[in-house]
């Protein structure tokens, strides 16, 4: 199941649940989690549209190298979702273009 969260172990998935807003919808995330992980855990695999071919993109390297995962966080542009640690009340806009988000469309953990 996509986004199924394994039980906490040696500091892996940090536990306190918080709510952030993604394109106006509430999403549950965990304190200390990266925004990319929170989005994937919520069943979203892509949250940006490329400017030329208008192809969907999400995270690729998950370590701040590829810049595929850019989002707008609290009004700030060009934030790497994999490098941003979520905080309660974060307001995320997935993409400056419409239809930027691709959901896994299935049941979620």
């Amino acid at each position, binding site marked *: 199941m996509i986004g199924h969260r*394994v039980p906490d172990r040696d500091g892996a998935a940090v536990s306190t649940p918080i709510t952030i807003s993604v394109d106006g919808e509430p999403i549950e995330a965990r304190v200390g989690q990266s925004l990319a992980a929170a989005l994937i855990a919520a069943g979203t695999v892509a949250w940006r549209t*490329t400017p030329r071919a208008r192809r969907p993109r999400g995270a690729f390297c998950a*370590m701040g*190298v590829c810049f595929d995962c850019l989002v707008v966080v609290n009004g700030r542009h060009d934030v790497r979702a994999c490098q941003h640690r979520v905080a309660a009340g974060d307001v995320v806009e997935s993409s400056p273009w419409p239809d930027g988000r691709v959901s896994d469309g299935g049941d979620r953990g």
Partner: protein
Amino acid sequence: MVTSAHVWSIDSDGVHVMVGEADGEGRESRCYRAAAVVLATGAHDRVLPVPGWDLPGVYSAGGGQALAKGEGVAIGRRVVVAGTGPFLLPVASSLLDAGCAVAGVFEAGRAGHLMRRWTVRPWELLGQPAKVLELGRYGSTLARRRVRYATGCAVTAIHGGQRVEAVTVSRLDASWAPRPGVGETLDVDAVCLGFGFSPRVELALAAGCRLDDRHFVMVDAQQRTSVPSVFAAGEITGIGGVDLALCEGTIAGHVAAGGRGDDSVLRVERRRRKVLRAFASRLQGAHAIGPKWTDWLNDDTVVCRCEEVDVARLRSVVETSESLSLRSLMLQSRAGLGSCQARICGRTVEELLLRTIPSHRLVGEGSIDRRPIASPVRLGEIAQSRAFEVEG
């Protein structure tokens, strides 16, 4: 100790750092002048392009590992892991732990080759029980969970509309050319690809350090680079795992702080470094990239993900341009000029250009690894920085 500190440049003034949240705004700008600098900026996975590798659901092997092991998130229901190198095994193991089904681990190197390279100088392995056991443990986890592991195979195409839906797995010959035939289709919703690692050498280059022909920072026995007072440790000097990085870091730190590389307190580190390096070079030889991987590219396969430059575009620029300079060919095609500054595609762009140019030579200065800004800063931050100085 300064945390949340992002070094964005090194120049004659010193080491320039932004302190604050990654990609933040209005961070504090500092400049450190230090008597010695130890660089340990690490490496990231190299991913070779495959048709469809720009679909959501495709991750670098390290990315899959970071999400699965680091954050406990399953990146898909059914995942394949492909590429080359022993790092594929821990990635698959972490995916299982995170709750993914692993549809297969496909190592491009062929079994005969791997065996020959792994077992050259077998006595060296005796010094390596921990490393060998670690790999053995991953191997047995995969076997117990009945995960398919195949050598001489690669994911040669990734299919899907808006995200990964399936992959084609092909058998490869010794040069990594896919064998004739259609290959096998597996339905998966995520893919992890890793073909070894690229060191993050932009700061080392900015400091003037010399690199070897594989783009790693050259160091002497004291971890000193070609620039006096600049030291390097860890994966930027060669890929060898966490234990080797720790030994090198200990030695570099000791010497940078005024000690000597042959001091007796470093006896253990020196010995371990030697053994671990021998192991690392064994792996390096066994998992070298085969030259014919380019056979699995199509004209419309994306090479540069940021600027969306495909194989055909790169070729047409070479064919219509008079230039043989890397810089100029990049400017004309836009390959490698996007926001990742060629961190993902640089090595590949260079390799594809070299192969397409009739003389197989690029001219002029310039390294694909040279990036004046090592980590993102906002223009406003530079403008506002009062650059208060800190003596180190």
